[in-house]
């Protein structure tokens, strides 16, 4: 009992340790305090339940109860009794929190702030894992299995975090798991008593046994496999090995952008930097603008057969007057801001990150130029490393109405000719034609294409995809629908160009997630690419098609709202408040739902409340599941019925045997001798006996393999059936028939075996209790036993043949060969 309590505490502590990786996705440590409270409640409930020596299922119920109380206390709705007892309103609150968490998971990116809904999901998940771990470790004594739920916690940051999770939290979680295993094993060894080592001496509990060498060898082999297999499998390259290998992840800081500003593959540099496991600060921005758009430094607008390429910029010195976009107009709001940028020593390139449309630079020397067309600042001599500069810029925002007024550009405009060139890929062209069909204005066409990259169409964010923006790769992306900003930006630009509208790909930084006051600190994780579309009289207007959950600091605008947001909510405002009409009944059902699940779980869709949506399918699925379960449960009973019917079939008892003989009276009439067919009678007796044995098994009457049929029949007649003379006689008849069929020259014929069988069966059923009768009908033990025996036999045969094979292979073992040679 003491050991159990101890193990329960260790299980709780190990769960908390395993939750350490969650620190990678939260900004603060509030979740840890709340998770500690929940896990403590679970552990306390389990300990109390165990004090009462309750069965395992009752312990589970107690732990779930404890978890519910803790959740109620931590996330109250205000209606609780004594602050901890849940009311229906509490569960309504839980359901709201769950819905809100789905929303948060979609909109927020790591590291997330402490929103109530996310904390709720976290605490619920950790508490659920604590329940599972406790049941597996203490209830079922299978601590190794407890690693699975622990791993589930670890998988959350792995799935949410786009880069690899820092190793320290994983080490902490793994240490917790090992602690659990060690505690359980020590407990086992203590219970066993002395440890036998093969050395002829006792060893301490903590000392490694010499017999454990096999375990150590297995561990080494497993570790080697775990390291080597990812190296061998293609596609699993982002990870430890990649970051150890300096040649692959060089990215922007190395040779990537160090050359002339023209001849650079910004795409390659981008993905290299995004995939880098190390996070380095690149830029620090201070701006007077409240919600700035992305910082940009490069543009790729030269689309060739192998994808988007950067052209060499040309322009005027930044010290001169820069073109002014002009004042605000109806539908276009232009505001002037000032920004100061500090470039760290890690960002080394001949382009400077600036906001779009800078109008006045300070602190920059003569060697920097501004390309008004590409809107980039570049230099042919100097680079950006360690440079600090400030500038004024104009931020333009557009209303969709204003953009709709933009007319198609004349076809002979050089800009249009140049910026709508695409390689000929018919599939993309067809897709574009299909999507833009019926759209009249330029803006509507772009919006249609932009909205195509939504989650509803199956697009997801994934960093580990094939790089490149050539036609083939764009097609692959449109097919697989998984990629990161490079593919989204390039694909949208390509498709907009195919629609006859100029478009290009811009590179820069998002706003990141580290903001202090007006200052943003941007890292290599915040590197980004997006699409810019040219509208007549408006200029280049940005569209960011990448899913916002994959991009920390993603910003959307009124003319390009988040495609994945629900219809009724406006962008940027729908963080936590969810519609109140959410059905509360579905809340508690969702507690097992996966935390990583993104946005579109069926419950959330069903809760939308819009009448146009089709009827929910989950009742049908549930009904189908229940039916399938019932059908599965009915299989043994049906099998038993089929067996009984087959055995109970009345056999043709007589058959003509022998040859026609001449009549003794000499009339010449052939006489057919009619006799019983012994084989048939034998088979009948055997099947009747088999059926009797199965019936005995079903009704839990002892069956002894060492008993002869006669002895079995006698035992039946004297023990269970002694009150029923008919049944006793019938049992003896069956025994006699079987023994004659087995051992005599000729079997018993002409006896009413099926009738005797049903008599015995009825008598046995009459004596059995209700539970036995029910089991005999629903889940006949005879069928189950036979299946179990078959499975056991098969596995034993497999093991035996495996052993034989191993023995045969042992002949070629090098150790053996060497031993032979040495012996020679």
């Amino acid at each position: 009992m003491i050991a159990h309590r101890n193990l329960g505490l260790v299980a709780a502590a190990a769960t908390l340790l395993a939750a350490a990786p969650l620190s990678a996705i939260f900004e603060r440590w509030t979740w840890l305090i709340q998770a500690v409270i929940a896990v403590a409640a679970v552990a306390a409930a389990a300990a109390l339940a165990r004090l009462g020596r309750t069965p395992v299922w009752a312990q589970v119920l107690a732990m779930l109860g404890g978890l519910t109380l803790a959740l109620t206390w931590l996330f109250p709705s205000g209606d609780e009794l004594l602050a901890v007892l849940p009311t229906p309103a509490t569960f309504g609150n839980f359901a709201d929190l769950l819905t809100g968490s789905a929303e948060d998971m979609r909109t927020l990116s790591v590291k997330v702030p402490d929103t109530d809904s996310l904390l709720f999901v976290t605490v619920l998940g950790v508490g659920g894992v604590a329940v599972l771990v406790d049941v597996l470790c203490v209830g079922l004594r299978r601590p190794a299995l407890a690693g699975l739920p622990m791993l589930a916690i670890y998988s959350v940051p792995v799935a949410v975090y786009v880069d690899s999770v820092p190793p320290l939290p994983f080490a902490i979680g793994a240490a917790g798991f090992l602690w659990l295993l060690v505690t359980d094993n020590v407990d086992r060894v203590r219970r066993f008593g002395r440890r036998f080592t093969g050395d002829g001496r006792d060893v301490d509990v903590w000392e490694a046994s010499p017999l454990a060498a096999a375990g150590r060898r297995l561990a080494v082999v497993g570790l080697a496999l775990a390291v080597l297999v990812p190296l061998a499998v293609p596609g699993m390259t982002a990870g430890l090995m990649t970051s150890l290998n300096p040649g692959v992840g060089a990215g922007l800081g190395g040779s990537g952008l160090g050359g002339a500003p023209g001849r650079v593959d910004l795409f390659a540099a981008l993905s290299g930097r995004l995939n880098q496991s190390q996070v380095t600060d690149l830029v620090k921005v201070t701006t007077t603008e409240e919600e700035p758009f992305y910082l940009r430094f490069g543009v790729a607008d030269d689309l060739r057969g192998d994808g988007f390429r950067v052209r060499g910029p040309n322009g005027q010195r930044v010290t001169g007057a820069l073109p002014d976009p002009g004042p605000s107009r109806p539908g276009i709001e232009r505001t002037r801001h000032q920004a100061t940028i500090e470039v760290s020593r890690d960002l080394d390139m001949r382009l400077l990150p600036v906001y779009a449309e800078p109008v006045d630079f300070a602190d920059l020397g003569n060697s920097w130029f501004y390309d008004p067309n590409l809107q980039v600042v570049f230099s042919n001599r100097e680079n950006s490393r360690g440079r600090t500069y400030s500038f004024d810029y104009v931020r333009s925002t557009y209303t969709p109405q204003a953009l709709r007024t933009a007319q198609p550009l004349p076809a002979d405009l050089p800009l249009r000719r140049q910026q709508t060139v695409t390689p000929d890929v018919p599939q993309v062209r067809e897709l574009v034609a299909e999507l833009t069909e019926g759209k009249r204005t330029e803006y509507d066409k772009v919006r249609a294409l932009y909205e195509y990259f939504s989650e509803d169409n199956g697009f997801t964010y994934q960093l580990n995809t094939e790089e490149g923006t050539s036609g083939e790769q764009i097609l692959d992306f449109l097919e697989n629908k998984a990629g990161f900003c490079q593919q989204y930006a390039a694909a949208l630009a390509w498709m907009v160009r195919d629609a006859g509208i100029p478009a290009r790909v811009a590179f820069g930084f998002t706003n990141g997630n580290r903001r202090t006051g007006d200052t943003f600190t941007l890292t290599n994780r915040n590197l980004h690419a997006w699409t810019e579309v040219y509208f007549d009289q408006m200029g280049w207007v940005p569209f960011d098609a990448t899913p916002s959950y994959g991009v920390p600091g993603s910003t959307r605008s009124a003319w390009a709202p988040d495609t994945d947001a629900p219809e009724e909510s406006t962008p940027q405002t729908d963080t936590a408040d969810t519609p109140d009409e959410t059905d509360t009944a579905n809340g508690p059902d969702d507690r097992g739902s996966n935390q990583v699940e993104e946005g579109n779980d069926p419950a959330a869709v069903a809760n939308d409340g819009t009448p146009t949506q089709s009827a929910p399918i989950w009742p049908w699925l549930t009904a189908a599941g229940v039916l399938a379960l019932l059908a599965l449960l009915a299989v043994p009973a049906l099998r038993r019925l089929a067996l009984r019917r087959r055995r109970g079939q009345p056999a043709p008892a007589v058959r003509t045997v022998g040859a026609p003989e001449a009549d003794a009276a000499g009339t010449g009439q052939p006489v057919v001798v009619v006799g019983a067919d012994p084989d048939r009678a034998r088979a009948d007796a055997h099947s009747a006996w088999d059926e009797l044995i199965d019936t005995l098994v079903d009704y839990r009457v002892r069956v002894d393999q060492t008993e002869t049929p006669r002895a079995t029949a006698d035992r039946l007649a004297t023990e269970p059936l002694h009150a029923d003379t008919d049944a006793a006689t019938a049992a003896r008849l069956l025994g006699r028939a079987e023994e004659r069929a087995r051992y005599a020259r000729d079997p018993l014929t002409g006896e009413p075996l099926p009738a005797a069988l049903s008599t015995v069966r009825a008598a046995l059923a009459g004596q059995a209790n209700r539970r036995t009768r029910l089991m005999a009908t629903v889940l006949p033990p005879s069928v189950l036993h036979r299946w179990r025996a078959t499975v056991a036999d098969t596995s034993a045969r497999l093991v035996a043949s495996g052993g034989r094979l191993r023995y045969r292979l042992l002949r070629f073992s090098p150790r053996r060969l060497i031993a032979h040679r040495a012996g020679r």
Partner: protein
Amino acid sequence: MTQQTWDEVGGLLPHDEFRAASDAIVANIEQVIEGKTATVRLALAVLLAEGHLLIEDVPGVGKTKLAKALARSIDCSVRRIQFTPDLLPSDVTGVSVYNQETHDFEFRPGAVFANLVVGDEINRASPKTQSALLECMEERQVTVDGVTYQLQTPFMVIATQNPIEMEGTYPLPEAQRDRFTARIAMGYPDPTAELAMLDGHGAVDPLPALRPVSDAETVRRLIGHVRQVHVADAVKQYAIDLVTATRESPDLRLGASPRCTLQMLRTARAVAALDGRDYVLPDDLQVLAVPVLAHRLIPTADAQLARRTTDAIIADLVHRLPLPHDRQRAPYDSRPPATGNGRAPFEPRRP
């Protein structure tokens, strides 16, 4: 005396005739031995199985009486040997003596030249004398001075002995124990049977008044009938499983011999015939396991120290051994391997 070969023993006997003859013998013996029907029938079964019977029990429970009653119920030649420590082999087998008149050696047959030989207190004779019985019991012949003399059919040795713990007894050699088909114990009669005994035998011994109800010819025909009893393959397999189990049992130093398997099946035939069946059941083998097997086996020292008798070991084996799955052997089916129970070939343990 005309000598009959084994093939000449009687033809087929009608079923009811067999039953009448056997029942008559049993009833006749029961006039003397009360309340021991199973033992008496087993003794008769041994006779019909052409075996030899060893009756072992404490003094005074009627061993000799059973032997004599069985002998007297059948009208055939009966000889009795009282085994004493100074008995010589030639007293058993016979001796050649010099005839003064013919100036030649002349063979004088010993006590074994009879249909039924009652050997009383057989384990009081020295092993040297007991060895004289070895040849005649197995081969039904006696060789003296290089001349072999055949014995008659039926030939049965009914020996009685006290348990080995009694004073003044020699243990029987293993070879001779293996020649006895069955060893039966008389056991004390139950109170009612003992009361009936007091009533019946109180004044006069009924044994001298016992009349024979059968003769050697009838017994030969009964034996012939027993030989026709059907033994199914499953039953043979079960017999083999049983003896194999004794050879592989960790409690036994010496297992059962192939001769034992033969004799067990023969006795089972006789038991089945006496039961009115023309086929042998595994039940018959189970009933016979202890009487037929127990006296041939030697328990290991461990089992002896644990006071496990061979009877208990055999009963345990029978209780644990599953019945073989009955399979109908196809006409062209090859014979199954020697040990059909799926285990590795048996490696005999050296005692």
